[in-house]
C-alpha cells in the first residue's frame, strides 16, 4: 500500500477559502461595537489585495506581538 500523495489545494479552492475568510471578517466587523473600524478595514482589505498581488510581506521585531 502506498501513502496518499498530498498536494496543495488548487488556486480556485484557495481563492474560495480566502473569499470565505473575507466574508467572515466583514461579518465580524459589522458588529455595532466595531462599526467605527469599518473604514479602516476597507483600506486594509484594499492594501491586502495589493500585498497579495505583490507576494506579501513579513516583518519580525521584538515587540511585534504587542503592536501588530
Amino acid at each position, binding site marked *: 500500500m502506498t501513502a496518499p500523495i498530498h498536494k496543495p489545494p488548487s488556486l480556485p479552492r484557495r481563492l474560495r*477559502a480566502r473569499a*470565505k475568510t473575507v466574508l467572515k471578517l466583514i461579518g*465580524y466587523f459589522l458588529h455595532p461595537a466595531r462599526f467605527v473600524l469599518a473604514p*479602516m478595514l476597507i483600506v486594509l482589505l484594499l*492594501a491586502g489585495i495589493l500585498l497579495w498581488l505583490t507576494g*506579501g510581506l513579513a516583518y519580525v521585531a521584538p515587540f511585534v506581538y504587542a*503592536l501588530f
Partner: protein
Amino acid sequence: MARVLGISAHYHDAAAALIVDGKLVAAIQQERLSRIKNDPSLPIAAARACLEFAGLAPEDLDAVAFYEQPFAKLERVLVNLLRNLPRTWKQFPRALASQLGSKLWVLDHLAEQLFVARDKVQCFEHHRCHAASAMFVSPYTDAAVLVVDGVGEHSSTTLWHGHDSELKLLASVDFPHSLGLLYAGLTAYLGFAVNEGEYKVMGLAAWGQATLRDEFARLIRLHADGSYELGLEYFAHMSDAELGFGPKLEALLGPRRPANKPWEFADPSDRVSRPGSRPDRHYANIAATLQAVLEDALLGLARRGRELSKSKNLCLAGGVALNALANARIQREAGFERVFVQPAAGDAGGALGAAILAALALGDPRPEPLVSAALGLPIDASRALTIAHELGLPIRRVDDPAAFTAELIARDKIVGFARGRFEWGPRALGQRSLLARPRERATRDRLNRLIKQREPFRPFAPAVASEHVERWFASPPDDMSPFMTTVAPVRPDVQAELAAVVHEDGTARLQTVEATRAPELHAVLAALAERGEHPIVLNTSLNGPGEPIVARSEDAIAFWLRHAIDALVLDDLVIERPT
C-alpha cells in the same frame, strides 16, 4: 474520540501538539526542528513530526486548532493604532504587512500547508488556550488559573476558575497594561534580547537589591484587587515594535545599558550597592527591583484568584509563568496548597491548550495529568551510528549508558546526554542535557568558557533524585520541581558542596527527578549513588549560545563537533574525546 492538532505561531516559539483520543501524544516546538531559536514561523515541520510520530496522516485529523483569534487580534491592532495616532502612523505600513501578509489568513494557510479541509481548522482565544494548557494537564480537578503574558487578542492578564473540564473567566487586565510588556521593556532597557533575555534579567536580579521602589512606583501601580496599571508614558510598546520603552524611562532610571557590553561584577563582594562605583550594580538593582515588583503584582493576582475561585490549587501559564523565582514566592506566600506550571508555559504552550480545547469540544475527556515533558521525537541511534561512521568519529555501544555517564561525571567530565524523546518547553530535563558534577565552581566556569559563553551572573541548575531532595534543599519536591519551573533554597550547610549550581541568593532552579518521569536521568543519578557519589548533577541544556536545544541525532553530533565536551551519550552509543 478525536485526533486534534494544536498550533501556535507567528509571534515567537511556534509549536504543534497532538491529542489522540484524549491523550497527549506529542508536542514539539518548531525551533527544535528548524534550528532557528524562538522560530515564530508556521510550525508545519513540527506538526508533520507529531503526525508521523503518531502514525497518522493529515486526513486522519478531526480538527486543527490555532491558539489565537485572528479577527479579534486585528481589531485590537486597529484600535491601538487609532488610539495612539500620530505616534503610530509610521507603523501603519508594517502593521498592514504583518496582518494582511500572513496573520489574517493563518487558518487558511494551516489548511493549505497541512493538507486538511479548511472547515476542520478553528481557533480559540489566546488566554483561554494558555489557561487550558495548564489546567487540563495539571493534577487538579479544581484550581484557580492565572495567565500572564505580553498580550493575547485584548487581554494581557486573566484569572480563571478551572473545574473538571470547564474554564470560567473571573477577571482580566487588558492591553496596553501588561506585566509581560513591563518585563520585556526593562529587558530591552538592560540590553538583552526581548523574548529570550528575560531569563537573564531574572538571574541578574540576585546580584542587586530592590533599591528603586520609588522609581518603579511610577512605572506600575498595583491595586488592592490584584489589578494593575502601567505608567504608559514610560513605555513605547503601543507605538514602537523595536524598543518597548520610551525616553522618559531613561530619564527616570538613567541611560539604557548597551547590548553585548561585558558585565563587570563577577566578584560576589560587588553585590552591595555602592554609588559611584561600577555602574553594572545599578543595572543589577534595576533587575532586582523589577523582579520584586513583578512578584508583588503576581502575588496580588494569585491571592485575588484564590478569593474568587475559593480553590486550594493554582495553575500558572503565559510567558511570565516561566519566572521560576516568582513561582517559588507564589508557592510560599499566596495561600495555595499546590501550584502547577507546565513546562512550556510560554506561547508554545498555547498549541497544547488549543488542542485540548478542540478535543474537549469534540467530546473527549481532558488528558491525564502531565507526568513527563519528554513529548518530542526520540533519538535515532541507527542514524547517529551512520553519521558518526561517515565522519570517522570513534562511536561505540555501551551496555549501561547510565553507569557509563555516571562514571564520567564522577571523574569531573562534561557529558552531552541525549536519550529518549526530547523535551517540551525551554528547559532541558535530562533528555537533551549537558551533565556535570555540581561540586566545583570551576566546572561552571569551564562550561561557560568552553560552551555556553553566558554572562557571569547566570546560574546553572541542579537535577537531584527526588528521594534525596531534602538532604540538599530546604523545600520538598512539589508539582513544579519536576519541570524546573521553580527555585528552592539550598541548605546552607551543603552550599559549598554544590558550588557550581548555587546562585548568588542561595537558591537553585532545581529539577526533582523521578524514575517514572525521567527514567534515563534518574538512572544516571542512581548510578552515581551506587558509586558513592552524591545523586545530584549540574543539568544544563544541550545547546551552544544562540542555538535551540538539540533535537535529533545529527544535531547532537553537530554539537559534539563544535563544542569541547568530554563525551556524548546518544541512546546507548558513546563518543569520547581522547584524553
